[in-house]
């Protein structure tokens, strides 16, 4: 890190910031919530209203704060002159969505609506206690649906507002916090387990007892999909539970699969899952030659691709003819690839531990495939050496004196496993998970029964 770079950065930021002078800011426009005889009027709730240099003592008008807790039913509140109307009212306010739910957890249902006031969306909850609570819906949300679901661990029910028509945009969730009222819950930073922003296979749905996100990746066999159930902590932060595998049609939220019965497909029982990690579903075989974006942000700049002249169909590539190219944080990293069959890029960010992104290539030769792993280390894109008793790939192998099948696969969660078939009728396999340290090491997970055709696995009966 260069002190000079820090100085240059600080100077540039200071210069740009100081271009904004106080006189450049919009003029003061104070929204007024006032009462006049016979009616209430909410005036000038413009989003552009600002306050600047306004002495507190001179502030005689109420700012139309989005969260107003008007104690309309309280005897201690001075009664407004003349008949009142529900606050606020304006010609631009019309209810768009509505839900009946016990928002504040007092055991009595409240009435929640989404209203549009002069171009701004507001969630409005008329509590059973007679109070009203409101919270703004952030700019850019087009509208109008409102759903209730019990996401949090508290007594109240949450309100959920979709932000777009896209199924993979996370919704807004509003919850009731003791002492604070109705607040917008916060999602975790992008990149945490359970959600990949902007990825079209992501879905979310509100259930009666929670919020569920899942991946609608098409899966062969009986259609298992990873899903996460979310909950709220006492600070209004949404947290995912552990990943689970469920059964559903691709466009419906998955749920725990029914008990395995005789599904007519035959095959032995694979036993209980026990301590096994999620071995399946495996990543669909979609090896790519196009750039694969792995940035945590939708439309982000980080991507990985293969570059270099392609060989003739079936021909081998010379050493260095093809390169793995990773662009991260605006910087390009290159690694020449070894000679051999033309490699393919596995379009999945791997979760094999370590802090840096890991990339996987696969080469095919007849019944055999070989995987190569690359990692960005110390600003270099380097191949990862493997060590241990198995090789990183698939094919026919000699296992303890017997020729048998070995399979290596990547799951939709980015984990890499290798299994060697021990016994065909029982589907018993010896299983390893690949973990990244200084080298890539296969961790022995013991024996498991894996039925590839039925996409099922367990610790064997």
């Amino acid at each position, binding site marked *: 890190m260069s002190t000079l770079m820090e100085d240059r950065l600080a100077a540039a930021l200071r210069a740009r*910031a100081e271009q904004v002078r106080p006189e450049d800011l919009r003029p003061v426009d104070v929204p007024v919530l006032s009462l006049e005889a016979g009616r209430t009027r909410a005036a000038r709730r413009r989003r552009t209203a600002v306050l600047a240099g306004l002495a507190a003592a001179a502030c005689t008008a109420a*700012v139309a704060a989005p969260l107003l807790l008007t104690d309309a039913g309280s005897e201690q509140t001075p009664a407004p002159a003349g008949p009142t109307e529900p606050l606020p009212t304006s010609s631009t306010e019309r209810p768009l969505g509505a839900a009946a739910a016990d928002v504040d957890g007092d055991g009595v249902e409240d009435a929640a609506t989404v209203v549009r006031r002069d171009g701004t969306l507001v969630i409005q909850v008329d509590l059973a206690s007679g109070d009203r609570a409101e919270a703004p819906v952030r700019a850019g949300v087009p509208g109008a649906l409102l759903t209730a679901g019990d996401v949090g661990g508290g007594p109240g029910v949450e309100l959920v507002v979709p932000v777009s028509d896209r199924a993979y945009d996370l919704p807004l969730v509003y919850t009731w916090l003791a002492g604070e009222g109705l607040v917008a819950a916060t999602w975790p930073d992008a990149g945490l387990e359970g959600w990949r922003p902007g990825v079209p296979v992501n879905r979310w749905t509100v259930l009666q007892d929670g919020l569920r996100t899942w991946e609608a990746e098409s899966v062969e066999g009986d259609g298992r999909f990873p899903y996460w159930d979310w909950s709220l902590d006492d600070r209004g932060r949404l947290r995912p539970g552990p990943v689970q595998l469920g059964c559903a049609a691709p466009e419906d939220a998955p749920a725990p699969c029914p008990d395995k019965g005789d599904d007519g497909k035959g095959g032995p029982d694979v036993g209980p899952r026990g301590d096994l990690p999620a071995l399946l579903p495996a990543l669909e075989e979609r090896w790519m030659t196009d750039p694969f974006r792995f940035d945590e942000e939708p439309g982000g700049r980080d991507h990985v691709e293969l570059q270099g002249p392609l060989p003739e169909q079936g021909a081998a590539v010379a050493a260095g003819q093809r390169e793995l190219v990773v662009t991260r944080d*605006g910087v390009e990293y290159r690694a020449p690839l070894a000679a051999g069959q033309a490699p393919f890029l596995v379009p999945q960010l791997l979760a094999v531990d370590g802090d840096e992104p890991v990339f996987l290539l696969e080469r095919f030769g007849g019944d055999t495939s070989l995987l190569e792993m690359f990692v960005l280390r110390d600003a270099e894109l380097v191949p990862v050496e493997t060590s241990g008793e198995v090789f990183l790939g698939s094919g026919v192998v000699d296992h303890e004196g017997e020729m048998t099948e070995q399979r290596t696969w990547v799951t939709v969660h980015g984990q890499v496993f290798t299994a060697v078939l021990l016994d065909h009728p029982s589907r018993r396999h010896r299983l390893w998970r690949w973990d990244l340290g200084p080298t890539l090491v296969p961790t022995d997970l013991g024996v498991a029964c894996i039925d590839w055709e039925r996409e099922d696995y367990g610790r064997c009966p």
Partner: protein
Amino acid sequence: MTGDVMLVPGGGAAVDGLDDAVALYSAHRLALVRLAVLLVDDLQSAEDVVQDAFTGFLGRTRALEDPDRALAYLRTSVVNGARSALRRRRTARAYVPPHEVEPEGPSGRAELNEEHREVLAAMDRLPARQREVLVLRYWSELSEAEIAEVLGISRGTVKSTASRGLDALERIMTTTEVSR
């Protein structure tokens, strides 16, 4: 009472705690707008972001009990709002037909000297999180702990993100200077 609005006849109203909110906001508004400009590079968008942050802030009346926490909340809202604004901008630009000319960059930077323009252009190439950490550190001059609170991340992540961001900036600047 915690921020209740008392409605009085005649059109005026006084809010318990609101005066403090207004005073706090007035004192920091310029700095918050400048922070937003450094993130979204557009004054109008920056003012919208800051206004939204203040609007949401007014609802969090308990934040008024601690001015430092209130300011951190405002900064967090501004950073999150800036990120949302940039996302909307990217979405909108994604639908621009190829034959349309990309709009010119903000005129504000045109008045800066070349060195500053190049540094800011290099900042544009960083991921949002790195930009945010670097702006909070080298303009807002927040400590690692304060940055961690604003962004809701660990201090270790602040440190590593800042380090990666500076390294990336240096590489980009070096590449820019070599190519001249």
